[in-house]
């Protein structure tokens, strides 16, 4: 019996750094097995009991997956922000930022102060990966050990010039070119108090992208054409954002890159991207999703509230709002189109006041939804906005929406020409 145990006992001993006597381990293991606990669970349970930890797995940032525990990573801190959050009314300070290795960059959250500074190369053990806005985020918890290293992260010298359309969340060492459309200073809370950064919109010939610059460079001014090396990409609110840091190389270009909007984008091609900024899609409204019509919001945080109770602020004096969440589909793909009260008025000609009246007359909150269905199901629309992916699927938040105006005849002639070819 004990011979059969031997390899497992050895394994447990090793995991506990040989600090626990073999007899104890054997006795405990036997007991657990008598309870018919599976061997793997018994081992796990014992290691935990004696304060050991399961094996650390070394991971590259590119390979981390949501839900992983006990991973070890080595990387360079790119940026850190100090945050104060409230958990059950107790204030807690945490640090969040971006860490990169030679494979990728990822956001991280450190739940205690490990004295992290931009540029530090660190080794972290017992880290875990959580889902943050549908992307893996590295977390340094109470059991994590952070060691500062003197080595450098060897970033591959891959300076291939990329178009903005090719940039993906997690890309590091990005080399790209663009024209700055607008840019402004923004105040943020960094580790050492308030700090100014730059935020704006840039574009190349066919793609617009938000940009964040962690350094105030004079070259970064509206109208300038810029070449940047060693920048990185991180998704912000579901849209890939280009980040420029102290280690990025920024230079002004002579030639301008003129942006011209892509027409006739197919939804099928849009939804395979991580996110998209300021694009136009066209399709038919095929379904109105729950949560459309008259809704109530918390006056403080704008969260949707049910029966006047906000998830965060408790009982509140709710504010009425009107919105539409609709499936728009062009035969190549589908996404959820979100229209606010202004666009609901434009498309459906219903105001919040009218919606309230409809609800009261029909004595049913579904009445507005039904009215919206009647007005737009099956109809064709174009919408301008941003596409992002999150836990509610692929969402397109519109800043404008309208019925297509193009000539049907011209389109027909063009198609007939294509058939003849």
């Amino acid at each position, binding site marked *: 019996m004990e011979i059969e145990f031997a390899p497992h006992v050895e394994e447990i001993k090793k995991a506990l750094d040989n600090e626990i006597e073999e007899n104890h381990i054997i006795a405990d293991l036997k007991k657990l097995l008598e309870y018919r606990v599976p061997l793997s669970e018994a081992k796990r349970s014992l290691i935990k009991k004696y304060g050991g930890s399961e094996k650390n797995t070394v991971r590259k940032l590119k390979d981390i997956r*949501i839900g992983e525990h006990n991973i070890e990573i080595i990387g360079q801190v790119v940026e850190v922000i100090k945050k104060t959050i409230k958990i059950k009314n107790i204030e807690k300070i945490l640090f969040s930022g971006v860490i990169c290795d030679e494979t990728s960059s990822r956001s991280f959250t450190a739940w205690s102060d490990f004295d992290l500074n931009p540029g530090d190369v660190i080794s972290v053990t017992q880290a875990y990966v959580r889902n943050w806005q*549908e992307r893996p985020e590295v977390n340094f918890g109470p059991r994590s050990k952070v060691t500062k290293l003197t080595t450098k992260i060897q970033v591959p010298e891959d300076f291939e010039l990329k178009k903005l359309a090719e940039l993906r969340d997690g890309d590091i060492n990005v080399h790209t070119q663009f024209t700055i459309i607008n840019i402004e200073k923004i105040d943020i809370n960094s580790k050492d108090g308030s700090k100014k950064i730059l935020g704006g919109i840039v574009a190349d010939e066919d793609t617009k992208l938000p940009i964040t610059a962690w350094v105030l460079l004079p070259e970064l001014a509206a109208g300038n054409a810029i070449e940047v090396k060693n920048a990185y990409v991180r998704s912000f609110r579901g849209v890939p954002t280009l980040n420029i840091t102290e280690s990025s190389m920024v230079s002004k270009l002579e030639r301008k890159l003129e942006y011209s909007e892509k027409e006739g984008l197919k939804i*099928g*091609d849009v*939804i*395979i991207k991580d996110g998209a900024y300021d694009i136009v899609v066209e399709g*038919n409204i*095929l*379904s109105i999703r729950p949560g459309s019509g008259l809704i109530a919001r918390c006056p403080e945080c704008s969260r949707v509230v049910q029966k006047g109770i906000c998830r965060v602020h408790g009982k509140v004096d709710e504010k009425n709002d009107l919105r539409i969440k609709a*499936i728009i*589909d*062009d*035969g*190549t*793909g*589908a996404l959820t189109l979100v229209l606010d009260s202004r666009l609901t008025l434009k498309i459906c000609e219903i105001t919040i006041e009218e919606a309230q009246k409809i609800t009261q007359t029909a004595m049913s909150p579904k009445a507005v939804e039904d009215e919206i*269905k*009647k007005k737009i*199901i*099956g*109809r*064709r629309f174009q919408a301008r906005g941003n596409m992002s*992916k999150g*836990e509610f*699927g*692929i969402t397109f938040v519109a800043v404008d929406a309208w019925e*297509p105006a193009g000539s*049907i*005849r011209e*389109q*027909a*002639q063009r*198609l*007939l020409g*294509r*058939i003849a070819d």
Partner: protein
Amino acid sequence: MEKIEKIMDREIAWRIFAHEFNMSNLFVSEGDERAPNYIITPTGVKCNRLFIIGVITEVENIGKDNNLWRARIADPTGVFTIYAGQYQPEAAIFLSELLVPSYVALVGKARKYEPEDGAVYLSVRPEEMNISDEKQRDRWVLEAAERTLERINIMEDALNSGLSGNELHEFLLTKVSNTALANGAMHAIKHYENLEKTLLEIKKALAHAIETVTIDSGIIISPQKPEEMKVQDQPEKNIDEFKTHERSFEKMKVQANPPELEPKEILASIIDELDTGKGTSFSKVLEISQKAGLDAKTVELSLKELMDEGRCYEPKIGVLRKV
């Protein structure tokens, strides 16, 4: 990321003309009973959901307890059959209040009905229905035409590549970003015989569809070419008369190739002959048709065409009646 994959899996609402939809006869189901069923069309659509804007030409209550509605929605190439039952109450109510003709938009699921005699009927079960208008319909026609044309081009490339199996699949994936379409194209190429010819036929139908929307609005769309043809080859009393007809066609030299009598016309005349007022059985029709040189598959397809054109119907399973 798994979650996102799932949401991306919302079935696309395909744009397919009735002509192509109704000629489809390949069905696949993946996994267990609850897995979605798909209809594979000749252009490689793996269709579960579709979106149609067309004209309602008939609404009929066919259920015992007023709970099953059948409707016909026409596009420029053919007719979709719609069934709405007790589990589609909104669509049933919508249909019951509808005026014929009127423009409607429909999102629905493709369904097949296979009575025992081996025939297959395709229909659409509505998810959403709404009133539409001429302009929306015209835009739908153009979109359906564009999407169909894209698919035909991919299929033609695939057929011309001479590849098969995994190599063909790889080739298709370089052509389309949509894996469902690559998958459907594989099925279609394997299943449909004379696919080149069929694709050409579909292309013709969609060219015709596009032409209909270029006609001045306000004028009711004039009888189209297929209609004119129909007037000329009205089913006659017997097949011999048809042969004379055929000869006269030859003399007229309407086409370069000697025109063949369409199987459906032969079938129409057979049904006409057999149906003395109370209908005739499908098996009898099949027997005579086979003697007349039509194979079972052709009979099945032609019968469907005749039904789509409203020239015959099936009052009971296995019984056919002329109109």
